[in-house]
């Protein structure tokens, strides 16, 4: 039997779903976190029955008529898929709005229980709701719940009640009657009546001490966080702290310990296989443990960042960030709603791109999905940390600079998209619900950190492991399948495949086949950049560079890579701003749903990565040595060709827009 969880956005559906099923789905304190339907069996201890109960988590909706694409999933599901029961989660702090949807759901005839969620907040505010009376007025059971708390939360009662209603027919307390759904006036009149009915119920069951329209402490916090002058600096400081703690202070401190263990393990394994063939030794010790270990070594940095981002998502600040950045994003043709995908992308680009679904304007949504990958994601973090450590003596500004470079590229990219796609200055309204602040749950953040950390380990143990093994084998053999001799590394299969790519990268300052190979494997998963570099250069410990320095001498660490500091920065930025992994491109494909836009997006990312790396390397080299770097002229030609294509596309769009306007004018 399937039980659908429905309700307004941010009423706590996914929190309840997680509690009921033991799953660990993404939650956040803003409207529109869940953009997909999710199903999982409810834990037996909630009802103790023999029959399996399946909970179905749905995106939030304010009414049966969908506004954005994810809301249509909800109305489509309850109307067409015939769930056996509905748990309608009602935000008890906003009864007057929530019951509108509740009364619509009751008309479906599916047995329903109302879970009056967030009852704890009401208690604090002194708002009282008479659940018995509400139940008799609605004609369905009503249970007060607090799904964020572990015990005494009312969840058992909700599930048991829902299960007991199986097979019954729900009577609706309010009927819309027969109206023509095509007539706007009739629909509106019916909806007005429905709201009047709801207002009547609310007046009978709810007593409030504090009126919502009065200014409260929360609003005073809002005044500061969304202040004209302070809003953006506060956001910049918050993000800086997230990156600094995860990548420069706490993260590396934990990573040091972990890497020590990995090295110890590597040593033990090396001892065990000492007498076997050199090939097996190299494959197991350098290729598999070395490459995967280099990636896993960065796990603490990633996990600390996930923890901090989860705290941010939980406290209610994200909606305020949208408010603060909306005026700026509007200037480049995006909206404040684009901010949420960008922030989520700092964790992983795939959920970030999926979060674009809540953006209603088609052009804004596509542009956001295409630009979100410019924000460095969790998988790119090891790459940043590696280069910051090896070439910039662990300077924390490197990481922060990369994020702000990402934001700058998003702005420039958005302007470019407008120019090419033909931005018509049409009205796009911005409205976002401001949820109540709450103290973020450390337990939630910990769980979320663990589940995402686990996903990172799984990835390291599967895709990264496979890639590293392949790289190690391709590096060890030449085309006649004989072991490559020492000093003859450039005859290996890997070298001969990567060399043509390396040619293209000469103008960017890093035309070595090793670096080209790492960049290419990076398209499969960005962590591969680190893994491949570890394999081709035979280094495992990228975290504690001091130790490396002791072994090799300070300059030799960078010398192993054989490139200048400027070229290293160019290489880092090339990896960050070219297309993300294939999985993210897949997510872009399913959100953008338009081959032309998708292709444009990938080209934009490739072009941007190449151009940025070219500019950083050539200008940087000019500044540091007084002359331009190698391959300046061919690189310039390549970049000029890309600029030429962009200008051609803009011209073409301008011409077609002009023609459109002329037609419009003629029609008038």
């Amino acid at each position, binding site marked *: 039997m399937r039980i659908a969880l429905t309700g307004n956005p941010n009423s706590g559906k996914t929190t309840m779903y997680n509690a009921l099923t033991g799953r660990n789905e993404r939650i956040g304190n803003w409207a529109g976190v869940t953009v997909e339907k999710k199903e999982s069996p409810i834990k037996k201890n909630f009802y103790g029955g023999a029959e399996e109960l399946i909970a179905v988590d749905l995106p939030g909706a304010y009414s049966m*008529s969908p506004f954005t694409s994810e809301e249509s999933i909800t109305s489509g599901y309850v109307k067409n898929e015939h769930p056996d029961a509905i748990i309608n989660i009602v935000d008890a702090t906003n009864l007057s709005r929530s019951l509108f949807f509740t009364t619509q759901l009751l008309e479906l005839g599916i047995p329903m229980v109302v879970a009056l969620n967030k009852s704890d907040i009401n208690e604090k505010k002194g708002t009282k709701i008479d659940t018995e009376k509400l139940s008799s007025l609605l004609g369905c059971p009503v249970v007060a719940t607090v799904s964020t708390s572990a015990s005494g939360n009312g969840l058992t009662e909700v599930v048991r009640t829902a299960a007991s209603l199986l097979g019954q027919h729900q009577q609706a307390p309010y009927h819309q009657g027969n109206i023509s759904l095509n007539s706007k006036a009739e629909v509106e009149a019916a909806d007005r009546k429905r709201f009047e009915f709801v207002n009547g119920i609310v007046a009978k069951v709810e007593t409030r001490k504090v009126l919502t329209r009065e200014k409260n402490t929360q609003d005073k916090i809002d*005044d500061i966080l969304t202040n004209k002058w302070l809003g953006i600096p506060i956001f910049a400081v918050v993000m800086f702290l997230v990156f600094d703690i995860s990548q420069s202070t706490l993260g590396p401190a934990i990573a040091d310990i972990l890497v020590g263990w990995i090295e110890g393990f590597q040593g033990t394994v090396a001892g065990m296989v000492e007498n076997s063939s050199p090939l097996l030794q190299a494959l197991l010790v350098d290729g598999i443990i070395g490459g995967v270990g280099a990636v896993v070594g960065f796990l603490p940095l990633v996990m600390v960042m996930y923890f901090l981002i989860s705290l941010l998502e939980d406290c209610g600040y994200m909606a305020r960030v949208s408010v603060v950045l*909306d005026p700026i994003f509007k200037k480049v043709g995006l909206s404040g709603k684009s901010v949420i995908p960008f922030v989520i992308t700092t964790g992983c680009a795939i959920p970030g791109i999926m979060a674009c679904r809540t953006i209603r304007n088609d052009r804004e949504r596509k542009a956001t999905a295409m630009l979100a990958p410019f924000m460095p994601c969790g998988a790119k973090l090891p790459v940043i940390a590696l280069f910051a450590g090896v070439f910039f003596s662990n300077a924390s500004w490197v990481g922060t600079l990369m994020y702000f470079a990402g934001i700058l590229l998003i702005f420039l990219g958005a302007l470019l998209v407008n120019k090419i796609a033909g931005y018509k200055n049409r009205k796009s309204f911005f409205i976002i619900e401001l949820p109540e602040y709450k103290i973020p749950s450390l337990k939630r953040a910990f769980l979320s950190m663990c589940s995402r950390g686990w996903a990172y380990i799984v990835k390291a143990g599967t895709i990264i492991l496979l890639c590293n093994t392949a790289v190690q084998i391709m590096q060890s053999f030449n085309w006649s399948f004989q072991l490559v001799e020492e000093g003859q590394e450039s005859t290996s299969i890997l070298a001969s495949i990567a060399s043509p790519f390396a040619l293209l990268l000469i103008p960017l300052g890093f035309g070595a086949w090793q670096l080209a190979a790492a960049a290419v494997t990076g398209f499969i998963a960005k962590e591969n950049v680190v893994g491949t570099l570890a394999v081709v250069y035979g280094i495992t410990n990228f975290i504690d560079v001091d130790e490396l320095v002791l072994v090799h001498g300070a300059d030799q660490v960078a010398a192993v890579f054989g490139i200048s500091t400027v070229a290293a920065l160019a290489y880092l930025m090339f990896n960050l701003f070219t297309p993300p992994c294939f999985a993210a491109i897949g997510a872009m494909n399913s959100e953008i749903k338009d081959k032309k836009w998708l292709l444009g997006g990938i080209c934009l990312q490739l072009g941007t990565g190449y151009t940025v790396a070219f500019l950083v390397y050539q200008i940087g080299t000019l500044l540091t040595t007084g002359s331009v770097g190698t391959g300046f002229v061919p690189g310039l030609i390549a970049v000029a060709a890309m600029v030429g294509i962009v200008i051609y596309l803009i011209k073409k769009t301008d011409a077609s827009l002009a023609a459109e306007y002329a037609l419009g004018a003629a029609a008038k």
Partner: protein
Amino acid sequence: MNLTNAQEGKEYIIRAIETDDEEMDAFLFSLGCYTGEPITVISHLKGGCVVSIKDGRYNIDHQLASAILI
């Protein structure tokens, strides 16, 4: 007048919503923002304002605020 020149903290009644975007109109309706209903501006911000509709708080931009007549 419209919401952009509303006094903070004072409850107004919505007179009309001027938009040709029917979906937006229907969406505002589902939040309880329609003619005849009360609305209060909590504070004015740089790009828009914070409003209280029924028991919810929303941020809306200037374009939308100027479309809501009170």
